[in-house]
């Protein structure tokens, strides 16, 4: 054997001895660290996770102390012991046979922020005249009422000028339907004749108005309600009757019938102020929509003034609120806006009024009191 073989043998022997007596091999195998594994459902797993998660808080959001006056609720009021209760949900509780499907609360998505920017001047673009008068619509051409959209704008009447005389001239075109004239004639004659007029006393076909003829009929415009007359009164009223010559009365009746025929063709018959108010009130109440108004607005009384033009339509620029009560400014403005829009809509075709009474209905003052309706 060569010296190298002896050296190699000695080294191998030493290495084996080191391994046997003090090497890296453990003298006994270490315990394997394993976990007990069992099959759990995903729902059960959710519950386990839920239990271990800290989302079950026992903290009440901080709030400032509020003194509770215990004396006020009587001496018998017991005070509870303050025992914060820990909400615990044990695994055994969950797995004790609850076979119902269990669900975790889902995370609540945060509410997305929406910022209302400072008001900016987004004023409505100016409407040019050409846009107002020249309509380009995609609808098939349809005849439209001339009053709604005229081919050319009609000049609004100057509301400041006295147009008493002009208005009568403007009503000159007499296109009275014959039916209306006959109806009025039949009613007025029968109702208004003060006495029986014989055939011989009838006016001629071309009546000549005498100098004594009254300019206006003395008949009441509507049939007066019968009223009890005291015994002493007839003496005061009777003297007027003899002044009317029967022929003159008949002539006046005929002339009045003719007058009604001409003026009533374009407008409604002349009415008293209360009747005119009734016409306007009825038209507005049956037209303007209040279903969208707030309860506060419905309990707010609003005063509005406005003017009507000679064509019996509202002058929008004249509609203004002059006062309110029973509510706040916001509710009053809400009522006013609804009324302004409503009366513009209701009067778009003109109220059914006589132009003869223009001075009566030219200026209007509205008291809007919807509280009674709200209660109903």
């Amino acid at each position, binding site marked *: 054997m060569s010296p190298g073989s002896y050296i190699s043998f000695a080294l191998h022997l030493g290495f084996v001895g080191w391994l046997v007596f003090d090497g890296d091999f453990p003298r006994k195998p270490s315990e394997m660290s394993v976990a007990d594994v069992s099959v759990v459902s995903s729902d059960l797993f959710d519950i386990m996770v839920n239990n271990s998660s800290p989302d079950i808080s026992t903290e009440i959001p901080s709030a400032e102390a509020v003194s509770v006056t215990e004396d006020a609720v009587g001496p018998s009021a017991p005070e509870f012991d303050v025992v914060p209760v820990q909400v615990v949900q044990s695994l055994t509780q969950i797995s004790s046979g609850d076979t119902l499907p269990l669900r975790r609360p889902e995370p609540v998505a945060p509410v997305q922020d929406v910022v209302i920017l400072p008001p900016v001047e987004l004023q409505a673009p100016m409407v040019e005249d050409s846009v107002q008068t020249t309509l380009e619509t995609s609808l098939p051409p349809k005849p439209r009422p001339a009053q709604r959209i005229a081919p050319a704008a009609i000049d609004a009447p100057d509301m400041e000028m006295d147009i008493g005389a002009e208005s009568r001239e403007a009503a000159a075109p007499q296109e009275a339907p014959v039916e209306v004239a006959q109806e009025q004639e039949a009613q007025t004659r029968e109702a208004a004749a003060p006495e029986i007029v014989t055939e011989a006393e009838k006016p001629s076909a071309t009546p000549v108005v005498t100098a004594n003829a009254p300019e206006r009929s003395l008949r009441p415009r509507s049939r007066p309600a019968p009223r009890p007359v005291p015994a002493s009164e007839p003496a005061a009223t009777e003297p007027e009757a003899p002044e009317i010559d029967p022929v003159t009365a008949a002539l006046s009746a005929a002339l009045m019938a003719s007058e009604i025929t001409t003026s009533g063709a374009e407008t409604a018959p002349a009415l008293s102020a209360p009747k005119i108010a009734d016409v306007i009130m009825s038209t507005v109440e049956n037209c303007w929509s209040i*279903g969208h108004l*707030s309860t506060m607005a419905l309990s707010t009384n609003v005063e509005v003034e406005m003017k009507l033009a000679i064509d019996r339509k509202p002058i929008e620029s004249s509609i203004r609120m002059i006062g309110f009560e029973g509510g706040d400014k916001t509710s009053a403005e809400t009522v006013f806006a609804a009324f302004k829009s409503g009366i513009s809509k209701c009067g778009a075709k003109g109220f059914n009024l006589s132009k003869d009474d223009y001075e009566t209905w030219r200026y209007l003052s509205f008291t809007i009191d919807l509280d009674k309706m709200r209660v109903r």
Partner: protein
Amino acid sequence: MAQNGPLRIEITDGVIEPLTFAVPMFEAENIEAVTIATEMSRIVATDLSSSGLFREVPPNRYIAQRSRFAEPVRYPDWRAINTQALVTAAVKTTSFGRLTVKFRIFDIYSGVQLGSGMQLSGSTKAVRRMAHKVADQVYARITGEGPYFDSKIVFVSESGPKDQRLKRLAIMDYDGENLQFLTGNENTVLAPRVSQDGKQVLYTSWETGFPQIYLLSVSSAARKRLPIPDNGMAFSPRFSPDAKRVVYSFEQGGNTDIYLMDLASARSARMTSSPSIDTAPSFSPDGRTIVFESDRSGTQQLYVLPVTGGAPKRISFGNGRYGTPVWSPRGDLIAFTKQSKGRFGIGVMRTDGSEERLLSASFLDEGPSWSPNGRVIMFTRETQGPKGAPSLYSVDISGRNLRAFNLRSPASDPSWGPVLP
């Protein structure tokens, strides 16, 4: 004869019908905003129509199908189709995921713009919220009421057969969208009540085997049981307007009374001590008074009681039984459930008990909850029969516009939260 002064006219009535409106599709100012503009305009129109105070003019009747935001409004065109209000808007997105919407409201018959235009800015993920905000502004400006479209409702979502119903808390937008669950359905829950800031919910749970009251954070869904002893049943909680106190019912030995808890100190004080069932308390908006139901007179009636103490005062005197009173957020009315002649209905009365009106009636209507503006009431209606199920309904306080919520599962116990900031 000329009138001396203006002719005076008193208007005491009007036509009760919805106001007609049009919402042409919002203008998209860039190509990315086209879809959003379409969605937003439909949401605004749906919101307004759902209120019952507005009626949409069908878009197919529009004379001008599209209108540019900057263009003048052609009032005659809109009058021709009987439109009373018009909403125009433009939508624009930015590269940072932001969305801007600007809008105007027009009174067609007056021919004027209502107020100034407005702008909203938000995330492109908040399209629905921004549309609700636009609708809220339109609604508020035209009606004078407060808004309520941009709000959330917490309720009990139910599933399973009728005799083994699973109930858990859920939250959704006022229109039923974005439904999410706040609790699991392993424990029966009842009667959620949202705080006025919308951040917390009180509810009753059978988690411990008998009813106890829990406080839940809406944002984290973390919950805590209120420190009320275990030797009785606690239920029917409700926040004070400032959310610092809770009023609730506590049953012990067959007697149910009303207690007031200060959340900061966790101390409770007894408010009633009648040998009767006093329950369902609700605060007035000023926090000074509560209204509750009690059978101390022999039948279930409504009573009001100052928070500082005193003798309860009965306010309901009609035929039938009254329960679950809820004070309006405006303070003018109290909503309640009324049982009479075998039917249940939702009604309102003044806070002194006058002017009682029934708004609904069916086999079972109960649990009213007010919208944040005090104009709409939501409640639970349960149908009869073995397959009967509860669902949510809403009704205007005028008694009109009764609407059902089309949720996919039965739902009950709504609690309407505030308008979101």
